């Protein structure tokens, strides 16, 4: 079975209006640049995006906000995007803010066939509203549900045509869990390597999770805060 695609445009051909898409990355680090740009070009509307952050005004998911393709963002921190804040305060954008660890675990649970789990994060806060609370060993925990998503857009460092992936540095972040969680998982890699060239012992994402893969182009890898000694 062929998972290999020529480019982002071909790989997202069946993404539709109103779909839910997970996007890997932390800030602008490890985001699927090619897939986001292809989605902007495609113009798909009313998307729900699950991503830790919402990019900046003119890069990353910010590009999709600018074109008003996003109906709802599910994120943990959205502080770097003024267009986002404007749309939100004007009621033009739905936002679901979720503790970062809960966001990560709800992705992991989705991929792991765990429909729900208990976490201490958010107990006693507005996050706990309308959620089931249960005591374990005398401490309160909140029941949180696995996410459901139509697609996962993933960025990896190296990958083979079967879909085995490795990530580089902290560009790993949400990518591995989201790769397990999409109904259809689409991966862009910086370098497509021959099958058999990756050591089985150091694969971060086993091929079984990956439905489509292609080698991305022209990575900008913009840095939000270049900080030096």
């Amino acid at each position: 079975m062929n998972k290999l695609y020529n480019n982002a445009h071909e790989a997202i051909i069946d993404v539709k209006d109103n779909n839910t898409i997970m996007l890997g990355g932390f800030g602008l680090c490890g985001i699927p640049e090619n897939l986001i740009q292809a989605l902007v070009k495609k113009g798909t509307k009313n998307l729900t995006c699950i991503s830790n952050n919402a990019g900046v005004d003119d890069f990353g998911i910010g590009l999709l906000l600018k074109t008003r393709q996003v109906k709802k963002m599910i994120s943990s921190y959205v502080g770097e995007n003024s267009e986002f804040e404007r749309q939100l305060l004007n009621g033009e954008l739905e936002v679901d803010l979720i503790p970062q660890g809960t966001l990560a675990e709800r992705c992991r649970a989705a991929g792991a066939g765990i429909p729900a789990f208990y976490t201490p994060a958010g107990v006693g806060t507005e996050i706990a509203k309308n959620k089931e609370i249960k005591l374990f060993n005398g401490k309160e925990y909140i029941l949180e549900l696995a996410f459901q998503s139509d697609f996962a857009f993933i960025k990896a460092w190296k990958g083979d045509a079967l879909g085995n992936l490795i990530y580089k540095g902290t560009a790993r972040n949400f990518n591995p869990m989201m790769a397990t969680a999409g109904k259809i998982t689409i991966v862009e890699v910086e370098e497509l390597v021959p099958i058999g060239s990756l050591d089985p012992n150091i694969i971060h994402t086993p091929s079984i999770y990956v439905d489509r893969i292609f080698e991305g182009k022209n990575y900008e890898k913009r840095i939000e805060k270049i900080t030096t000694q």
Partner: protein
Amino acid sequence: MGLNKFQIAQRISQELNDGDYVNLGIGIPTLIANYIPNNISVIMQSENGLLGMGPFPKREDVDPDLINAGKETITTLDGSSIFNSSESFAMIRGGRVNLTVLGAMEVSQAGDIANWKIPGKMVKGMGGAMDLVASAKNIIVAMMHTNKKGESKLLKKCSLPITGINCVKKIVTNLAVIDIENNNFILKEYAPGVSVEEIKNATEGDLIIADSISEMCLQ
């Protein structure tokens, strides 16, 4: 009045123990890394997926694939490890991080903390703060004693949406070191040149003066 933010960081660095795994929040907490005593070794956790975070890179070593939770470029030290976000919060919720230092907009005398939202004004999100405060064994808050309007940030009850309940153990401000015990602020140390009276006036919550009160030592 009292300490500047660098001195607050310096004072908190005295709370570190050899071998501690430490998560430092954005702002003043980040500065603590510059004041780690020479005779101990601590390992920094960054919740975006790194253990063993090093200093900021030299200009020529900047790597876009290596950032901290504040989105700043950083480096790794020998013995570091990189992992995904789920693993990162697994170790946080699992209680393996020994000390978490956070900034705050408000802290209550019950140890509640508010630092993620100002209704109608600021909508940045909680990031990893809710997971950290719900899980960490030891949480220290680093902040100014009062806000820009001069109002106390140490309150009987938080007025802003809270991030976590009954979790803050210690607060280090520009004026004082204050522990939280039995629903009270306990004044343990005052900043050089700051009077107990000044601290009392800047503290809205119930403040008990510790028997062992002393001046902060900043070497």
